[in-house]
């Protein structure tokens, strides 16, 4: 039976207006965040479906489930959908859109209509991609390397390129909106050093979105032009250099991985502070490390090209720079750890995801350093070692941060509490499933299994079977939150304004918030993460788990 709120329901952004028109024409950043939530979840399942087929094929050494060409399409579309239509938008477009205005104390983003436009652009890109997949798909790998993509592939390269080109503009507009909002819309008293680190992380992410995305946009234009007109820009037979494509592609696509991880780091910072009841250790270091990651992230792209034919001197430079980019990430890990030290730790579901993030991101990041070493790279490039490395960061890091954030802010977003017991179980299942899926892949890559192959020597089968088993468990772990979040919207306990007694302006307004976020414009006179003050009246009470 639905649990009704015993109090008469306050007007909030969800019930202020009803009807599909009020959602499709909304300029409320919170509603747009939910529109994005539905769209990216949809694409997550599409990308996940392709992953399922990949892992099913890899259960056996022979290529017996699908044909080789089909397998090429599967891993290509898995990558394209997950990167461009799930990971890149995920946290910024859902949690960022919802929270950035509230965290700075504003009524909305700087450009609400551009925000809505960005969602429509995303949807158009998504429809183009769906059509592309439904009418034959692409088989070039998500990396579109030339001259295969421009001169030899018989698949729908142009349509996929256009779909991603369009989706890129959604990303650009989101970043633009965030930067202007953070600069111009902060409430009185909200100085830069009082901003939540979630904001700093999204600010850094937005810088990357602004500067990087246009480069892949023009690269895709060149690919489409080359493929249509055989211009020779990337074709060695016509005097072109295929590596030029790779330089231009990776100039965006490497910083893109920081678009995917920085917001997640912002989420984890908020969660760790709240569930350790402590101010983040080294606030300025964490804030500046986000900016440093954004800047350094643009300096390392050719580490994806060490074996592609770049000069060895360039390779040396990029290898050195790749070691440098790890430093700000390591700074964050140290600061999170130092925050936990002597904190009052609570093991609610968001914190479980944060712990998972800490361990898995560290492993993923360290294996990135292995890959940045030229000698090791020669050996493991284009093997499952690389795949394991980036999935540890993208899935073990970014997706866990996303899920942790969805749990942490779910009461604020929906006005309902999710069932804590199920949530902790799901977090555990995700963690176990994830490690079972991807740890064997480190070993597989190290002993030589190449990526993008649908058949492999029989001695690799055990590891592949373990990986597929893990993927199934991981899938269950992902389904559970979907089910109980939906369940909670009707049957969940109504949430108080601040169920976690967390710091941050978003917790000072109702759950769910009113359309203009605050009844009165906030005036900030306190520092960020003022957990000592927040906990002072409650020090005698035992903190209650959800």
């Amino acid at each position: 039976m639905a649990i009704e709120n015993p109090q008469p329901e306050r007007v909030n952004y969800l019930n202020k207006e009803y009807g599909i028109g009020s959602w499709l024409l909304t300029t409320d950043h919170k509603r747009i965040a939910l529109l994005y939530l539905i769209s990216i979840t949809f694409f997550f399942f599409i990308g996940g479906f392709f992953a399922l087929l990949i892992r099913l094929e890899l259960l056996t050494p022979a290529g017996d489930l699908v044909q080789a060409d089909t397998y090429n399409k599967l891993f290509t579309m898995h990558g394209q959908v997950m990167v461009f239509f799930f990971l890149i938008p995920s946290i910024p477009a859902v949690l960022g859109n919802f929270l950035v205005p509230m965290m700075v104390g504003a009524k909305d983003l700087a450009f609400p209509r551009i925000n809505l436009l960005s969602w429509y652009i995303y949807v158009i890109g998504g429809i183009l991609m769906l059509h592309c997949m439904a009418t034959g798909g692409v088989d070039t790998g998500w990396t579109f390397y030339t001259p295969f993509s421009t001169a030899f592939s018989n698949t729908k390269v142009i349509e996929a390129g256009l779909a991603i080109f369009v989706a890129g503009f959604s990303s650009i507009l989101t970043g633009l909106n965030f930067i202007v909002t953070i600069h111009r819309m902060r409430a009185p008293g909200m100085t830069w050093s009082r901003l939540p680190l979630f904001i700093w992380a999204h600010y850094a992410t937005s810088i990357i979105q602004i500067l990087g995305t246009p480069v892949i946009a023009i690269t895709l234009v060149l690919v489409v032009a080359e493929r249509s007109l055989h211009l020779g820009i990337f074709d060695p037979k016509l005097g072109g250099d295929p590596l030029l494509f790779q330089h231009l592609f990776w100039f965006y696509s490497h910083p893109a991985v920081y678009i995917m991880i920085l917001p997640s780091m912002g989420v984890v910072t908020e969660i760790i502070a709240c569930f350790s009841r402590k101010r983040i250790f080294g606030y300025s270091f964490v804030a500046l490390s986000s900016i440093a990651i954004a800047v350094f992230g643009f300096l390392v792209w050719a580490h994806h090209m060490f074996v592609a034919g770049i000069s060895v001197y360039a390779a040396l430079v990029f290898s050195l720079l790749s070691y440098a980019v790890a430093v700000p990430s390591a700074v964050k890990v140290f600061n999170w750890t130092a925050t936990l030290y002597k904190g009052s730790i609570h093991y609610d579901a968001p914190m479980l995801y944060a712990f998972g993030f800490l361990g898995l991101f560290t492993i993923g990041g360290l294996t990135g350093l292995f890959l940045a070493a030229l000698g090791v790279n020669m050996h493991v490039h284009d093997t499952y070692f690389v795949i394991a490395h980036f999935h540890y960061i993208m899935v073990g890091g970014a997706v866990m941060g996303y899920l942790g954030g969805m749990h942490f802010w779910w009461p604020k977003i929906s006005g309902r509490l999710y069932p804590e017991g199920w949530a902790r179980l799901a977090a555990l299942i995700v963690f176990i499933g994830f490690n079972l899926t991807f740890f064997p892949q480190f070993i597989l890559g190290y002993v030589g299994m190449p990526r993008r192959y649908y058949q492999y020597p029989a001695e690799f089968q055990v590891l592949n079977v373990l990986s597929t088993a893990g993927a199934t468990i991981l899938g269950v772990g992902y389904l559970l939150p979907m089910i109980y979040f939906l369940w909670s919207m009707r049957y969940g306990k109504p949430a108080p304004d601040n169920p976690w007694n967390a710091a941050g302006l978003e917790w000072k307004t109702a759950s769910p918030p009113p359309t203009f976020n605050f009844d009165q414009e906030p005036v900030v006179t306190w520092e960020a993460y003022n957990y000592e003050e927040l906990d002072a009246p409650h020090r005698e009470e035992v903190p209650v788990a959800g």
Partner: protein
Amino acid sequence: MSEHSSSSLVTYVGIWAALIFGTILTYFAARIDLGPFNAAVALTIATTKTLLVALFFMHLKGASEKLLKLVVISTVFFLLILLALSMADYGTRAWS
């Protein structure tokens, strides 16, 4: 925050004249053999013209905040990174 930044009409016409002069200079400098410096001269004049347009026509000079200048400088910096680090590859391939 920037106020209504605007220069006087005389300034605008003066900048316009400088831009026209720069164009003429570029055109005729290209017809003289300066050896390897032809491209450098052309790009220097182009950059000077760009600075004039950005500072005076786009009111960057009058902006009371450093923020807009920071946006411009950062963008140019990353564009130069793209060009320079790509050239680090192409320029050194012949060395091996």
